[in-house]
């Protein structure tokens, strides 16, 4: 990654890596502009990793779990209890556990790629995947709302109860825009933007260090250490954000589903 983002070494000017550097050449055919990209490979790999791990962990079904089973149960129990049960509650929550569970670990693994050396590419630093997941969630919660409340759901979701009639002309458009238009956009872009920004910072720091080290001036060479320290701190922050964004995305999904399930009481 760093090697690929090398600035022009012969000149004294530093050209920072930009958005265009986010698009690596394809793997298949090798080096082509369009084709089977590294992101695609990583997404497929994440499915294999998650499925393999959890099937291995859950397979034994012992009452007293071993280490692997315990780890799997901890991970599963986190999504099941801390997200699905706490937010959705009731008896219904178990129906939505598979979706929330898949979302959480799919996003988590794909984000953590960005913190692993040599892979160092969060899949959602390309916006396509984030759009797809947000769209799945969007369709899901609207479907749940319609199934639960019928066509009346749109009224329930946009006309808040207890608001004086003369404010409704202002409130209803705001509700429509925020719930049905802005919500999926923010849901997807939040994930994508944090991953893109984190990846850009890592790239920037990497190329910056390389540029400084190549300088003739000893002081400038030494300054690369400062950048390195900053880069390590940013790397830690990024790792935190990677996990946090997976949690936020899943949590918001649970909140949207809960809102659709109990639209009549909101």
């Amino acid at each position, binding site marked *: 990654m760093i090697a690929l983002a090398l600035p022009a070494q012969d000149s004294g000017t530093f050209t920072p890596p930009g958005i265009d550097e986010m698009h690596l050449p394809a793997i298949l055919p090798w080096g082509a502009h369009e084709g089977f990209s590294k992101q695609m490979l990583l997404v*497929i790999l994440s*499915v294999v990793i998650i499925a393999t791990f959890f*099937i291995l962990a859950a397979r034994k079904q012992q009452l007293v779990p071993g280490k692997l089973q315990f780890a*799997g*149960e901890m991970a599963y129990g986190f999504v099941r209890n801390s997200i699905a049960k706490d937010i959705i509650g009731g008896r219904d929550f178990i129906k939505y*556990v598979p979706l929330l569970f*898949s979302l959480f670990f799919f996003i988590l693994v794909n984000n953590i790629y960005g913190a692993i050396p040599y892979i160092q590419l969060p899949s959602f630093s390309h916006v396509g995947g984030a759009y797809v997941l947000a769209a799945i969630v969007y369709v899901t919660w609207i479907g749940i709302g319609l199934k639960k409340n019928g066509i009346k759901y749109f009224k329930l979701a946009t006309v808040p109860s207890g608001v004086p009639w003369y404010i409704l002309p202002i409130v209803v458009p705001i509700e429509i825009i925020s719930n049905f238009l802005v919500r999926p956009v923010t849901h997807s872009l939040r994930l994508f933007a944090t991953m893109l920004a984190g990846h850009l910072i890592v790239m920037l720091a990497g190329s910056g260090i390389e540029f400084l080290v190549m300088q003739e001036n000893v002081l400038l060479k030494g300054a690369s250490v400062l950048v390195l320290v900053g880069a390590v701190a940013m790397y830690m922050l990024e790792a935190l954000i990677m996990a946090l964004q997976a949690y936020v995305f899943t949590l918001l999904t649970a909140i949207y589903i809960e809102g659709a399930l109990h639209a009549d009481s909101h």
Partner: protein
Amino acid sequence: MNQLIISAATEGEESASPLTPNVWEMGVVLVGFAVLLFIVVKFVVPMFEKTFAERAEAIEGGIAKAEKAQAEASAALEEYKQQLTDARAEANRIREEARAEGAQILADLKAKAAAESARITEQAHAQIESERQAAVVALRSEVGTLATTLAGRIVGEALTDDERSARVVDRFLADLESQNAGAAK
């Protein structure tokens, strides 16, 4: 390598906006996520839920068993306590009975002893009385004889006639008795 990227980026003319998605990547994510969701729905969640349910059942079964054992133990304890109380009461009762019996025996013995002593006293009295009578009788005849002998010796042969002497003795004794009675009075 560097040249390659730059040239590749510039070749794709409208590649600038990062918000424009790559359709193929979207497809890969959609299919990948669908496969993952399918595996999770079909295998992972049922397996975990089954384990959780079995574990809850095992724990609840264990609790029920423990509760049963607890109940049995407390019932046994109650029984033992009851038995202990019964045994204490029994011991008390026996002790009371023994005490009463002892008192009874003591009283009986006392009564018996009193009766015996009364009987002995009675007997002694009777014996003394009869002996006194005997002594009186013996003395009467002896005193008569002795007096007669004495008087005969003094008076001589005259008094050898039995009939007369007997009359004299009797008169003498009667005098003596009446004197005695008078003294006693």
